[in-house]
């Protein structure tokens, strides 16, 4: 049971053909998501996250390769996939003039759920989403966080085993974002639900069991969050230089410096050896009359790893 596969793709290709050009939006992507795990798909804007989600769900045709949800083929078994999976599209909006309860009933009707069953499911989901006190409020008058919770509840009304969420917390404040992820955590632990989520938030990616990193349609990493962080070279030094641009340029050229990232007024410098490079960096900057404050060694987070891996890809791409 543990190793059963919920979502899978093999050599998946999707192209958008224009009059003059063809864009390969998904370029031979192979991935597997186990039942009961939370899988995060991350990548820069336009990398192919939404397209991958839609092709797997059978909303877009693939050009070659294989993909399936719970063993149902994305192209041949679309209706089975509908029945067993929930989906929240990016910037999905609910009918604003319908109340919370009307929205839930509407989605239940769409899925052909009997009114007897509806009552039970909807009551349960309202409690789950913390919306019991708001059943008669129009969806348009809910706060941003509550709208997202309602969208999630609506996508679960037919009791799917898999949910695919495309940037579900976009524009949501930190408090509501935490609440939303707590709901996802409960779904996974209580119902064994498989959760597939595209996200631009790296702290959300950190909460997934596995993460796929996609760049220009290619899957360049498929790892646990820990594994992704280990793909980053060397050690990370953070400090605030007195002159930013000259310091960045100077440090980038020093020996043993593997990569330099900027973080507001801070520089994030990846070095091969902290003990050796730290004093060298300080004295090289000092020679140019640049002082640095708040220097410390930090653990790279998912965000630093993401930036490092993507810029590496970009460099290789430009070299070609």
């Amino acid at each position, binding site marked *: 049971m543990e190793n059963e596969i919920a979502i899978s793709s093999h050599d998946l290709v999707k192209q958008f053909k224009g009059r003059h050009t063809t864009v390969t939006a998904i370029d031979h992507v192979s991935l597997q998501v186990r039942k009961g795990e939370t899988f995060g798909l991350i990548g820069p804007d*336009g990398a192919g996250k939404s397209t991958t989600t839609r092709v797997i769900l059978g909303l877009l045709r693939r050009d070659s390769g294989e993909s399936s949800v719970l063993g149902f083929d994305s192209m041949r078994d679309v209706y089975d996939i509908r029945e067993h999976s929930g989906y929240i599209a990016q910037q999905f909006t609910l009918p604003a003039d319908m109340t919370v309860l009307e929205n839930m009933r509407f989605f239940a009707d769409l899925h052909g759920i009997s009114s007897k069953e509806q009552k039970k499911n909807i009551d349960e989901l309202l409690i789950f989403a913390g919306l019991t006190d708001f059943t008669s409020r129009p969806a348009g008058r809910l706060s941003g966080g509550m709208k997202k919770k309602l969208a999630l509840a609506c996508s679960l009304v037919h009791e799917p085993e898999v949910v695919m969420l495309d940037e579900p917390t976009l524009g949501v*404040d930190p408090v509501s974002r935490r609440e939303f992820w707590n709901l996802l955590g409960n779904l996974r632990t209580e119902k064994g639900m498989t959760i597939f989520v595209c996200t*631009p*938030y790296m702290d959300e990616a*950190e909460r997934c069991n596995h993460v796929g990193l996609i760049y220009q349609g290619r899957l360049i990493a498929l790892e646990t969050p820990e594994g992704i962080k280990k793909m980053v070279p060397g050690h990370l030094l953070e400090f605030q230089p007195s002159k930013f641009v000259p310091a960045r340029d100077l440090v980038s050229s020093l020996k043993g410096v593997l990569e330099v990232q900027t*973080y*507001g007024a801070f520089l994030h410098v990846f070095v091969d050896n902290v003990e050796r490079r730290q004093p060298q960096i300080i004295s090289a900057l000092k020679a140019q009359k640049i002082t640095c404050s708040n220097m410390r060694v930090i653990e790279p*987070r998912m965000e630093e790893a*993401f930036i490092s891996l993507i810029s590496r890809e970009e460099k290789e791409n430009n070299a070609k």
Partner: protein
Amino acid sequence: MPNKQTNLEPTSEPGVDPVIAENLTKRFGDFTAVDHVTFQIHSGEIFGWLGPNGAGKTTTIRMMLGLIQPSEGTLRVLGFDPVTQKKTMQGNVGYMSQLFTLYNDLTAIENIRFYGKVYGLSREHLAERQREIIEMAGLHGRENAVTSTLSGGWKQRLALGCAIVHNPKVVFLDEPTAGVDPISRREFWGLIYSMAKKGTTVLVTTHYMDEAELCQRVGFINMGKLVAIGTPAELKLNQMQGQVLEVNTTDSDRAIRILKDAQKNKSLPFDEVALYGAQIHVVVPGAEKYKGRVKKLLEKEKIKVIGVERIVPTLEDVFISTINSSQKANKK
């Protein structure tokens, strides 16, 4: 009529704060969106204006832009009254909305020109600004791309360029980084820093607490009220009720439920239990006292605990703690 107090004279002298709000209030019918808010933004500062959805952030900005009138209180932007001196003031402020208001069927350069003309820039000045903005936003080679074909990061930097085409002294950025990827966010913050360095005052709203850490000062607004203001370091020191334990386990989903249950049935006095990336942050009255008890509780439920450590709270911890306690105070 609003704005009874007019004791502040228009001025843009150095040393005078470019944004001054005193008891600023906005009511819509019987709903108070902004409730007696008092604060100043200093010259050349990056000021983070933070709060949950619907807290009153955008309403505040709209008053500062003179788009809506305050119901009560005083507001000065660069010494001007945004309502009565709107025209003069607007030539000196820039605004980028969360919607990146660009004309999608115009090219990048056409958008810049359009905004330049709206602000009445002379032909020579506009040509110069055009070059500077293309340079700043890294739009070389994409000047003639139709805006709708640009990806999120490019659009965002173009929108900023258009917002500052007239070299404003104060810039209001309303959720400028929503929905763009981490790389574009970093580049964008590079731009904010370089603007501030040149003396521009920046007010920015964001839902990313790591971005809030990059502000020089931040203000938290909740349900229309200013609930905390200070540098990120000050807020971490003063604003947080209790101390933060970071709990590292191999099964955070299950661990958080156990800790939340303990919070609910009050067997342990946790102020807050929340996931933070893959770790759990627990707010306790005393770190040393509860470290061992948290560990024991989880191990009793057969969860492998990698570590329980006291940490300096992140701004997100402070934000959530402040918002929650102001919510509780309001309910009473």
